[in-house]
């Protein structure tokens, strides 16, 4: 009788064990699920801002005219009531979008601080608002995030080799042009590519979200070069691909290519009979803040006039990248 009970208990426990086995499977599913959830964690998609139609005639050959400054700059810490500058002043810091991988313009120093020409100009904007160039917060934005970061209000202003184009005017406002360069091509020193025509059948690296991609595609289409484009997210990814042999050439703004040449002396620029495209840099600001556009344009006028522009240029670009000083294009205004 007692043995029977033992058998009965064993039998009952066996059924419990069967359900236990499934609870163990649950543990495996739970842990594997947790690992896979983290492996697949994704960022929210970058929303492209809605387009507007510019109310002025935007000329693709010169899209630079911006908003004219109104009167002299207000004194630091005394931003006029109701302006966006006053909101920035009350917040206590200017939030700016920059790149931290572009030698000369916006790059991370060994001590973790961000430096460069774009960064120094933004510090002057902070100085104009606060009287203190250090009241600034840097947000690193990739090339394709520059316009959305401004349009969504994530940053107050972006300065990151941002070319002024009529397409982008549909999404954001620009300050006046503060720097002009051209699109070029960088290859390895021992490369068989010596002119644009040699690019046929080659792999060309370009940065996602840059004007260079559209320009090189147009060039390929026009000449029937049959080159393939290798798009990357971060600017130096192109140099990595060139060094790894994943790309045969890089096309980008000469400013970026100069930075690459400094980091890798075994590369050289193709000499082109004519540039692929002219690039005119302006700072990007949300279309919701025309007062801030006028304010920054006034700051840029002042920098041009008081010699600070030349001083920062020489210190960041001539010393750093060997780019000789060229005076900035005169500002153009449309209203």
């Amino acid at each position, binding site marked *: 009788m007692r043995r029977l009970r033992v058998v009965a208990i064993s*039998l009952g*426990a066996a059924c419990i*064990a069967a359900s236990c086995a499934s609870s163990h499977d649950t543990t*495996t599913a739970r842990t594997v699920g947790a690992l896979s959830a983290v*492996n697949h*964690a994704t960022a*929210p998609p970058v929303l492209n801002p809605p387009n507007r139609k510019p109310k002025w005639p935007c000329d693709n050959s010169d899209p630079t005219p911006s908003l004219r400054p109104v009167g002299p700059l207000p004194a630091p810490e005394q931003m006029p009531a109701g302006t966006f500058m006053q909101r920035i002043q009350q917040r206590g810091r200017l939030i700016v979008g920059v790149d931290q991988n572009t030698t000369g313009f916006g790059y991370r*120093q060994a001590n973790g601080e*961000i430096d460069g020409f774009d960064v120094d100009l933004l510090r002057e904007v902070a100085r104009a608002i606060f009287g203190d160039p250090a009241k600034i917060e*840097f947000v690193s934005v990739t090339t394709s995030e520059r316009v959305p970061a401004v349009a969504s209000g994530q940053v107050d202003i972006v300065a990151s080799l941002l070319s002024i184009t009529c397409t982008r005017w549909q999404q954001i406002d620009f300050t006046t042009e503060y720097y002009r360069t051209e699109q070029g091509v960088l290859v390895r020193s021992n490369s068989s590519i010596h002119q644009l025509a040699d690019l046929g059948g080659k792999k060309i690296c370009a940065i996602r979200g840059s004007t260079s991609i559209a320009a090189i595609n147009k060039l390929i289409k026009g000449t029937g070069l049959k080159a393939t484009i290798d798009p990357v997210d971060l600017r130096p990814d192109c140099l990595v691909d060139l060094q790894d042999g994943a790309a045969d050439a890089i096309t980008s703004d000469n400013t970026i290519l100069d930075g690459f040449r400094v980091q890798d002396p075994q590369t050289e620029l193709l000499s082109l009979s004519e540039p692929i495209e002219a690039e005119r840099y302006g700072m990007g600001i949300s279309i919701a803040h025309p007062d801030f556009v006028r304010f920054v344009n006034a700051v840029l006028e002042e920098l041009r006039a008081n010699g600070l522009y030349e001083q920062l240029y020489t210190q960041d670009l001539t010393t750093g990248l060997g780019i000789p000083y060229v005076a900035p294009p005169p500002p153009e205004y449309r209203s």
Partner: protein
Amino acid sequence: MTAAPFTATRARQEPAETASPASSRSAHISTPGLLRIVGVVLTVGVIVFGLVVIRSATARRHAAHEVATTATARLTEAADAYVELADADAAESTAFLQGPVESAALRQRYNRDLREAAQRLTALAGGGSADARAATQAVTQQLLFYAGLVDSARANNLLGNSVGAAYLHQASSKVMRGTILPETTSVYEDAARDFDANDHAGMATSEILAVLLVGALVLALLIGAQLYLAIRTRRILNVGLVIATLLVLALGVWSLVAFGAERDALRRSQRGGSDPLQLLSTARILTLRQIGDDNLELIERGAVDTYRPEFEVAADQLGGSGGLIALADSAVRGTDAPRDMKQLTSTYGGFLADHNAARNDNDRDNYRGAVAVTTGKETRDFQALDAAYQRVLADTLVELNHQSQQAQDALTGLAIGAALFVVLAIAAVVLGLRRRIEEYA
């Protein structure tokens, strides 16, 4: 085969009418012939029963042995390989954040992690499914690529070239997080499923049912034979068959009790061993990902926006009442060997507080403050947390080994015992029936 003793005995021509007039209706069946058939059936039945017990005992003992040795080893090797890979990456990103001159301690940690991970991967490549072996191979290959990118990053960082950050980004984001860690996850998953399969095999109810059914059938046959003999021969007790019946009954009870004990031990090894082992290994891995996320978030300054969501996903998986840490806590609570989960839980709380402090600093434009917190207090708390994980994991492994050893011990001697019982039972059947058959000779 074993029926030989019956045929060797020559039977009498006619059944004993004297035995029982009541049974004269079946007088046309030869009683010795019937007894021989009964003998053969009983022998075969006892053998089948013995084989079922022996087979089940061997299979379950093997499964329990696998759980205690190979399966657990593979599971921990896979988890440890993941930990070392993620830790190497975290060490490298911490070094980058701290500045251009890499600290010797971090460099050593990175080197040790990669070396040990490579050794584990070599060991893992020898087992598991074809997919898992392919994944192991992919990880080994990508690891060389990863190390090459990290070397390029270091060389460029020393020169102050910003392309160094891009090399680190490719190493960390694309190779490590894009390929190596997902592939290692699938190796871990394979090891976990293999472990589960052995656990299942060790606890299968089908074998217990088979022993019960076959045992009951053989017992019924034995009892039926004795009833038949009692009616036919008017001898109430056939000592041989009674002994055979008791032997079969004893073997049945022994095997059921042994299987029950083995299964209970395996269940304890699961509850207090393999369940928390998996939960804690995974929790440790996710925490490593978190510190890496915080480092990379600061390095990239928001340019790569997957690190914050990744940290949050990991935090959701770890924390809260349904989180891995709480599940591990409740798994080890109420076991024979409770572990110190309290310290682990509170250290994780401290780690999260550091993370929030660093994030607040970063969000309030105190980048240097954020870097100081993350590479300082947060990294120290992370190390304390990782040490707590390791302590609890070590205790859990001891418990798992102890219980799966008990599961094996429960089955000790059952297979040999079953063989002995079968031989004895057959002898008893033969002896018991031969005397009856000889009466007709």
